[in-house]
């Protein structure tokens, strides 16, 4: 679908020389659960107060691996009296204006209903998150576009949620989390992808989530650093499942965006899958093309956190191998491992590549701008 950004920011003197950017991973956050009450039925408000979210993890509040910073956020991203990412005026000034951001994609990931054990409650919270995004963020700020939070573990409920917003130009993507409870290419999820493709929306898969299984095939690691680094491996398994189950073959026009999972691992995975498939394709007759071809044609990746080799030029080789048309700049605001557009590319690159990287790819993908 085609969406118009209806107004652009007024030029600010400090920004005049800055390249316009699209930021494909911004995290709005509610100050407290009361913010969702206007969008929840009374029974779910009471349920939330009595039992809490209960995702597939140990603690009532806060992550099983304590983060590296309070709220995993930049120290300077706390608006007066609120949590990071909770104030639109503050975010406008600190993020959108500063980075000359003309298109910002919201991914409302925190405690958003997607991984709740009680799936009916989860679906209600997902819907509330979408209404909250729409009214508190997307309508007041036309530079921001939303991702539809869907309860993907219940495909029928997720489809209903997609269909609710399919024609609403404020939403440009369907949001999932990468730690699904079963391999995401499996049949139980196909309806979600079909509904997204039918609505002309890419599916954005943000790292994290609580599928219930350990982040490694060898069990639970001890440290937050392993959990964080592990999103790359978790996303490798996610992408492998999507490719090998044939989702890209079965659902034409399906577009997948991997968010905050790194990108430099993609070439090696694609080479590995091609090689293995060459040997084992008798097992997957539903695949008609090389795994690397499906990946190239159907997958986009956000850039944050940029991999940082000692020889920083090496990361440009990785981008060459993936394709400069497949990367989407993202800051991950307000989180602590934020990437600054002024420093994210290790060295000067050709003007066209730079414009694609910072803006054009996102505009083309999300049909906005």
């Amino acid at each position, binding site marked *: 679908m085609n969406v118009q950004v209806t107004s652009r920011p007024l030029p600010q003197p400090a920004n005049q020389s800055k390249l316009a950017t699209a930021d494909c991973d911004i995290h709005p956050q509610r100050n407290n659960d009361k913010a969702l009450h206007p969008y929840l039925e009374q029974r779910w408000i009471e349920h939330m107060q009595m039992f809490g979210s209960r995702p597939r993890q140990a603690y009532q509040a806060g992550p099983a691996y304590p983060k590296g910073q309070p709220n995993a956020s930049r120290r300077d991203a706390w608006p007066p009296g609120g949590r990071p990412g909770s104030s639109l005026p503050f975010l406008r000034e600190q993020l959108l204006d500063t980075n000359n951001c003309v298109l910002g994609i919201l991914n409302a990931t925190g405690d958003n209903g997607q991984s709740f054990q009680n799936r009916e409650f989860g679906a209600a919270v997902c819907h509330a998150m979408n209404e909250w995004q729409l009214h508190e963020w997307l309508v007041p700020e036309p530079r921001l576009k939303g991702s539809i939070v869907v309860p993907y573990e219940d495909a029928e409920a997720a489809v209903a949620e997609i269909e609710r917003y399919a024609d609403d130009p404020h939403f440009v993507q369907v949001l999932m989390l990468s730690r699904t409870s079963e391999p995401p290419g499996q049949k139980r999820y196909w309806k979600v992808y079909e509904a997204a493709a039918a609505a002309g929306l890419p599916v954005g898969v943000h790292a994290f989530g609580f599928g219930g299984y350990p982040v490694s*095939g060898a069990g639970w690691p001890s440290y937050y650093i392993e959990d964080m680094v592990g999103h790359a491996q978790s996303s490798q398994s996610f992408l*492998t499942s999507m490719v090998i189950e044939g989702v890209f073959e079965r659902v034409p026009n399906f577009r997948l965006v991997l968010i905050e999972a790194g990108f430099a691992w993609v070439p090696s995975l694609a080479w590995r899958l091609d090689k*293995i498939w060459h*040997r084992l394709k008798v097992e997957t007759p539903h695949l008609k093309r090389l795994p690397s071809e499906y990946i190239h044609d159907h997958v986009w990746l956000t850039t944050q956190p940029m991999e940082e080799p000692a020889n920083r030029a090496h990361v440009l080789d990785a981008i060459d191998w993936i394709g400069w048309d497949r990367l989407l700049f993202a800051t991950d605001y307000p989180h602590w491992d934020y990437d600054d557009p002024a420093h994210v590319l290790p060295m000067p690159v050709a003007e066209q590549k730079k414009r694609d990287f910072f803006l054009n790819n996102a505009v083309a993908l999300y049909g906005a701008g």
Partner: protein
Amino acid sequence: MSVIETGGIDCDIHPAVPNLKALHPYLSDHWRDIIVQRGMHELNSIAYPTNSPLTARPDWRVEGIRPGSDLELLRRHALNPFRTSIAIANCLYGVQLLFSEDMGAGFARAVNDWMAAEWLDKEPRLRASIVVPAQNPEMAVDEINRVAPDKRFVQVLLLVMNDMPLGNRHYWPIYAAAQKHGLAVGIHAGSAYRHPVTPVGWPSYYTEDYAAQAAAFQQALSSLIVEGVFTKFPDLKVVLLESGFTWLPAHLWRLTKFWRGLRMEVPWLDRAPTEVVKANVRLTIQPCDGPPTEEMFQKLMEHMDSDELLLFSTDYPHWQFDGEDVLPAGLSRAMVRKIMIDNPRATYPRLTEMVQ
């Protein structure tokens, strides 16, 4: 393809236990009785389905013989054509998959004694890894201490996926014993299947299981490094076997970046992960999940940032390459020599010691 050196050291071949019966002479009366009494099946892991194309190269399959189980065929298929001086035998019989620690220990012991008698005694070019019951590190250490005096055993063998990540302190007695005896620790593809092989659950296809091994190695490497295994055991060499290696640079870029941001969590890790790998970690060259062009491969080798990381391997009898195309194209002669001879020698001190 790159031209091989004569006298190379093949760091990953797989002699196979043909069947449980072959272990009978090496098992205690108790375990022999148990096999019969309980009607035990073969301990063949689902990591390598017997008839899957990957499990044995088509021209290395011989009707009626379990691939890898015949010494004469090993000579004819691998040792002779690749002009190998030494090959390290990693037996993948699934003893680490058993839930009973005692049974795991009993069968591991039998596999090692079988290896010494049926392979090492008969073929002087062979060395082997000590199979250990990783289910119980104390028992694993007992087995290492029992077998280590035989200098033909050059390594301790672990699977990449066990009950918990391999850097966990639970496993440190194994590393202490390996370091004490001058043994490398070889970590091989495969799982005890205590957890699904992927973080998103049990996959539908074997293709995904095999693909997931590379991710498991990345996480095992993260675990070993951040838990401080190499801080505690600075002389330990860990060899990743059948791991793939083209994932290594990107993984280290990410791990090193997060280490910069989160080192307060693991203060004992006093060097960048990239530096730890250069000092302590090696990887075998098959499978080579390489890029489509030689130019890209050259760049990838630059990203590896060291010519000491890779060790020659055929992964016999697994089907990773055809004909004699065992090395990726574009390696210089000097690099081939490093991979086939110098690097393995530097990794396995026992290869250059006099064999008793």
